[in-house]
């Protein structure tokens, strides 16, 4: 009984928030056919971190009323052709590109990272892991820059624990691009201790030149919001801090 009341209250508060907060101040979680971490991100943001966010189907016209986005993990369009390749050609991604050019914030996680790379918002490519196997487990990543809106609450050089789960997570860039993104400080996280997928220079996350779009292979939505291992959730908190000033 008590629990039910609690749920009802939570739902009421949720509804209250969704009515009082303008979509501009909410995060849109873009759902493609085959996305499968969308509900997890939704839960982590709304329930654990109390950051207002909505699931938005990619073909829904409401998408354009949001100003900041998370593209969740999963297998959009079944990962056919290449992970992220087909989603990158949808009108929804065209819309996101426009928003990105206006400086809006976009965070791509796992498959979201793959989509951002495929649509050209981020440099490089993500290909099949060096081991040829899907890998799931926890790994350590190091903060390479905290001058992004996604890492402002983390300290430079800090190592955090975070889950990974991907089959095509090997980040590839050629020498020129690598030199350029290193120079412009666009590498946001690197795997440390071991490189689970064979990424160039152990890169786990990159951002664009304007630093408003970031792609990350590991899954920050899978860590607890409090207690041991919560550090990765500071990625979302940093973003929210930035959005709410």
């Amino acid at each position, binding site marked *: 009984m008590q629990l039910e009341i609690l749920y009802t209250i939570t739902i009421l508060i949720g509804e209250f928030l969704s009515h009082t907060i303008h979509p501009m101040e909410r995060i849109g979680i873009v759902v493609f056919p085959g996305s499968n971490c969308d509900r997890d991100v939704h839960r982590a943001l709304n329930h654990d971190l109390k950051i207002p966010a909505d699931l938005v189907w990619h073909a829904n016209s409401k998408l354009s009323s949001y100003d900041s986005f998370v593209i969740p993990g999963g297998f959009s369009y079944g990962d056919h052709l290449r992970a992220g390749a087909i989603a990158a050609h949808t009108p929804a991604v065209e819309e996101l590109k426009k928003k990105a050019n206006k400086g809006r914030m976009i965070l791509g996680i796992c498959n979201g990272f793959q989509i951002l790379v495929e649509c050209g918002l981020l440099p490089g*490519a993500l290909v099949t892991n060096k081991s040829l196997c899907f890998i799931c487990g926890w790994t350590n990543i190091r903060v390479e820059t905290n001058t992004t809106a996604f890492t402002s609450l983390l300290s430079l050089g800090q190592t955090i624990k975070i889950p990974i789960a991907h089959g095509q997570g090997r980040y590839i860039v050629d020498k020129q691009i690598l030199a350029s993104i290193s120079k412009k400080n666009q590498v946001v996280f690197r795997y440390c201790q071991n490189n689970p997928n064979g990424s160039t220079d152990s890169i786990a996350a990159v951002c664009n030149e304007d630093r408003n779009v970031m792609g990350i292979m590991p899954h920050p939505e899978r860590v607890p919001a409090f207690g041991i291992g919560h550090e990765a959730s500071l990625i979302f908190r940093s973003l929210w801090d930035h959005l709410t000033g």
Partner: protein
Amino acid sequence: MTIENKPYVSDPEGETILRDLIMRGGYANVIGVRVAKSLKLKVKAKNKKIAEENARTMCESLRIFNPVVSNCSITAIPKIKPLARGHSKTRHNRR
């Protein structure tokens, strides 16, 4: 249409096949393996050249291959083999 990693991108699958299967199987005359993905498209077009051009434009505009890591080569084969879909006669084809 064959999509293949650029030379600077290593090909772990090809390497594994070479090392674990072929070399261990004793096939010493095989000295290199590269894995690629091919797409067989069935395209309506006036001639081979147009078909290839069509395919190439499509390939580039839809980014059928990722130019950062892959090359793509295209060859049209005029009507040599009908695509399986909807061709029940090919049904018992084994090879």
